[in-house]
């Protein structure tokens, strides 16, 4: 199992960061996934953070909903100059991204409680409780 994880990690080490992908895109449209809204600028730009911690100034389309600070969005865009993104399209607003995490934690807690209600630890490992 650890060998398989290492094999995957080794493959992932060759994955380019978003910055490298954008540099090699040469003006083509690039997918920006799960970008976190950092701040708004008066000029119509929104500053996003990517997973690698790099910041991107994105010219947000005027007819599109402006995502809240701290929320996540995915979209396609074209890099016009270093760190500046234009021609944004195919926007996905990840509404409830944080709520999803809380619901998942709650579900996990309920499952753990149910597990210990129905299983008991014997010297031979976990076994079903005889009701």
């Amino acid at each position: 199992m650890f060998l398989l994880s290492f094999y995957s990690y080794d493959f992932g080490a060759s994955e380019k960061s978003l910055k490298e992908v954008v540099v090699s895109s040469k003006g083509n449209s690039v997918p920006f996934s799960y970008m976190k809204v950092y701040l708004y600028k008066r000029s119509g730009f929104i500053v996003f953070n990517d997973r690698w911690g790099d910041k991107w100034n994105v010219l947000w389309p005027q007819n599109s909903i402006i995502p809240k600070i701290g929320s996540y969005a995915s979209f396609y865009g074209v890099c016009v100059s270093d760190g500046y993104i234009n021609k944004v399209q195919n926007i996905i607003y990840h509404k409830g991204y944080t709520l999803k995490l809380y619901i998942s934690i709650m579900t996990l807690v309920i499952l753990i409680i149910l597990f210990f209600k129905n299983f008991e630890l014997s010297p031979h490992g976990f076994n079903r409780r005889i009701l």
Partner: protein
Amino acid sequence: MPDAATHILIQIMFNKLIWIKKIAPYSLFGAIAPDFAKGLNRIISPDWDWVFYPMHSPFYMLFFFYAISMLFHKSERSSFILGSLLGMGIHLFLDILQTNISGSYYMPLFPFSFKTISLGLINTETSLFFLPLTILIVLLTYFLKEYIGKKI
């Protein structure tokens, strides 16, 4: 990924429909197991994410469930592995239905291939929007199977 509640609810419905009994509790574990490391990708470097991406591969998870099964009594181990793999399979099916704008990291064929699969049929947060409806459908299925099924 759909939220864990949706994964669990769909698994409960599946278990009820095909009348799985012995492996049912383990299938619930399998239904959420692939996402155990998901929370970590918010705090660790994206490079380390690759350590956990194989958790959406049945081959990798077979080893994972085998390792966890050692915590159980001998008589429960095969049921645990079988149930967990079933839950994991349904989890994977739901995950690959989603839209991922830059492609997903779901690699069902790992370690034989790093090919990622994403069918793009539903948005990633759609499951939250439909959660109340999912709960209703599961309750309805439960009711129909428990009460009407018995009368017939």
